[in-house]
């Protein structure tokens, strides 16, 4: 453990989870309690400014700041207290993995979890992450009770939906550009067991999938579909839909009932840093994988009991799985189009399947209503998220073309995953951008908070 007064400082090459577009920054680590030291490091940051970084699970350049300062706020070791109505207050550097290991055995779950446990609470707030329960329960920001925020001035303030609500909502989904979140209080979900009751089914094509999700999603807390984006023709959009909820005690097998809240996920295997430069994921292997994955799913299975890790975080079983893409890395593409724009979604799926660029991690979800965050990504509609090998031929033309389809349909891109789009796409996709900028600039008039993402997409109007 490093002493409070001597943070590690070094110029390091940072990238996102897609392992693309690395830039160097002066990186330092501080415990969240040491706000004075963080404030002073930020005050000394030069014209390239400062930014907080969590566990680096953003796929693009959201958590890097070329030529500037990047601050890693670490979690605290203190015991985690949960109030009787399930509110927990933790350091922003706490990962959901650490948090779940503490709260699940006590009968609580996080209100929203993405596809990996390895995100920090600060990152969850900055990206306003969403999960399989968005259609009923919204995104992470909707469950936050209060935030402790370090401003560019060095002041530490508490913000909430009642206290300085514009600054609170500008910080939710604000990509770290309003200040550094030091602590967050949010509501947990009470659970009776650490297992999930899951219904799985195969859908033969995109229309069948969307119909089933529209009709049945609201009967389940959690719902998401894996789509085979390589399939063509009448199989276009064939998918595996998984829906479920936390299992009740009486749903568990007798063997598990004695320790209903047991939870201790492990990593099963890790990808070494010695993968062939082309990666092992190419069109041929991905086509084969997708065929296998679709066939292996049951045509229909109801009430299967699964573990939390198995249902929510399957990729976390493979450490450093992003290395499978080789030296060219991976580009993630995620967008949402409003309800009623199903044709735009179909066009995107058709173009992807005929492009020859292969994705094996494509998921489709139906979003519910958005919250008040002006830069929040989710809105009622359809969201598709997919991965593409960074070296894919014609990737630029493909993605810029898809951008036009998405934007023309009134949709937008998820900034936590974006690695390629333009300032114009943000202007068109986020109609409340100017409102967000005004709030942001009011607490950071000299542009101290900067990131590669903010520079690339022109998110802020001020730079030092």
């Amino acid at each position: 453990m490093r002493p409070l007064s001597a943070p590690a400082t070094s110029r390091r090459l940072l990238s996102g989870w897609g392992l693309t577009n690395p830039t160097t920054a002066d990186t330092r680590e501080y415990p969240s309690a040491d706000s004075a030291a963080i404030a002073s490091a930020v005050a000394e940051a030069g014209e390239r400014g400062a930014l907080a970084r969590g566990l680096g699970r953003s796929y693009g350049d959201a958590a890097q700041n070329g030529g500037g300062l990047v601050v890693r706020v670490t979690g605290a070791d203190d015991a985690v207290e949960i109030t009787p109505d399930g509110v927990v207050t933790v350091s922003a550097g706490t990962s959901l993995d650490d948090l779940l290991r503490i709260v699940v055995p006590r009968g609580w779950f996080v209100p929203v979890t993405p596809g990996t446990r390895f995100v920090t609470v600060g990152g969850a707030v900055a990206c306003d992450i969403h999960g399989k329960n968005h259609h009923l329960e919204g995104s992470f920001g909707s469950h936050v009770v209060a935030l402790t925020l370090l401003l560019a001035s060095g002041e530490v303030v508490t913000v909430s939906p009642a206290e300085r609500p514009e600054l609170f909502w500008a910080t939710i989904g604000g990509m770290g550009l309003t200040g550094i979140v030091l602590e967050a209080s949010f509501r947990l979900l009470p659970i009776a067991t650490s297992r999930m009751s899951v219904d799985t089914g195969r859908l033969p094509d995109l229309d069948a999938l969307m119909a089933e999700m529209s009709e049945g999603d609201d009967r389940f807390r959690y719902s998401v579909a894996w789509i085979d984006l390589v399939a063509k023709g009448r199989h276009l959009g064939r998918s595996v839909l998984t829906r479920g909820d936390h299992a009740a005690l009486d749903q568990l097998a007798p063997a598990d009932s004695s320790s209903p809240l047991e939870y201790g996920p492990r990593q099963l295997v890790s990808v070494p840093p010695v993968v062939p430069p082309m990666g092992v994921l190419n069109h041929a292997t991905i086509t084969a994988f997708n065929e296998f994955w679709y066939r292996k799913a049951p045509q229909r299975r109801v009430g299967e009991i699964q573990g939390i890790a198995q249902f929510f975080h399957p990729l976390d079983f493979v450490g450093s799985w992003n290395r499978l893409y080789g030296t060219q890395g991976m580009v993630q593409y995620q967008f949402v189009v409003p309800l009623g724009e199903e044709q735009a979604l179909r066009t995107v799926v058709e173009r992807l399947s005929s492009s020859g660029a292969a994705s094996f991690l494509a998921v489709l979800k139906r979003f519910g209503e958005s919250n008040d965050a002006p830069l929040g990504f989710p809105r009622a509609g359809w969201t598709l998220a997919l991965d593409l090998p960074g070296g894919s031929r014609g990737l630029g033309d493909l993605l810029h073309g898809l951008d036009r389809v998405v934007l023309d349909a009134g949709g937008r891109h998820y900034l936590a995953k974006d690695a390629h789009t333009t300032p114009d796409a943000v202007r068109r996709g986020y109609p409340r951008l100017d409102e967000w900028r005004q709030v942001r600039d009011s607490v950071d008039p000299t542009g101290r908070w900067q990131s590669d993402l903010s520079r690339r997409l022109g998110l802020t109007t001020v730079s030092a």
Partner: protein
Amino acid sequence: MQNALGEPQTILLLGGTSDIGVAIVRRLLSPTTRTVVLACRDTARGDAVAAGLRHDSLTVEVVAFDGADAASHSAVVEGVAARHGDIDLVVVAFAVLGDGAVTSRDPVAAFELLQVNVSGTVSATIAAANRLRAQGHGSIVLLSSVAGERVRAANPVYGGSKAGVDGFAQGLGDGLAADGVHLMVVRPGFVHSAMTAGLEPAPFATTPEHVAECVARGLRGRRRMVWAPGVLRGVFMVLRHLPGAVWRRLPLG
């Protein structure tokens, strides 16, 4: 800030009227590109080139730039960054060919050619590297030539200038990698362009567009050196090791 597809938002071309330089810029233009700056001595010619590149969502600026005036190089680079934000790609393409028969016999002509091709190129590259290092990211493409690989009697001053710059680029580039900056040397063979107009083409002659394609691929792969056409790598691997007596007899002009 460039994106993950290697598409630059801001490009600075030092040698704004160079055929190869302009071909590289054209090849790298994408919906992401917002600004191109052409830095050249002949700003009137630069304006003509700019007019051909400019469109609604692309700003093209022409700035005065003298390759031999080292004292001005930092100001030019920093000025571009101040006006347009982070520079993602700097192409260094202002070297001159000279007439081998003249430069190999006229000390002053030789000196002046080296001022531009070596001193000026090194100075400009350092100015660019300083800026990119401060940004923590960016790429520099340095136009060299196969003429530097094994210098011929026909144009020893030009060939020598390329050999000198290559050595500098190798060393500087090694140091820049840790700063997130990518330095790539391009070795074209004979390229049909304004610079070689009227000269007898050498074997494996190529076009500015093909050189640009090799550059684009090299940037994506973060290569340190690219040959254009690629076959020349193999050709020169052989030529490099020919005994001097054989080399001197080759009809290489």
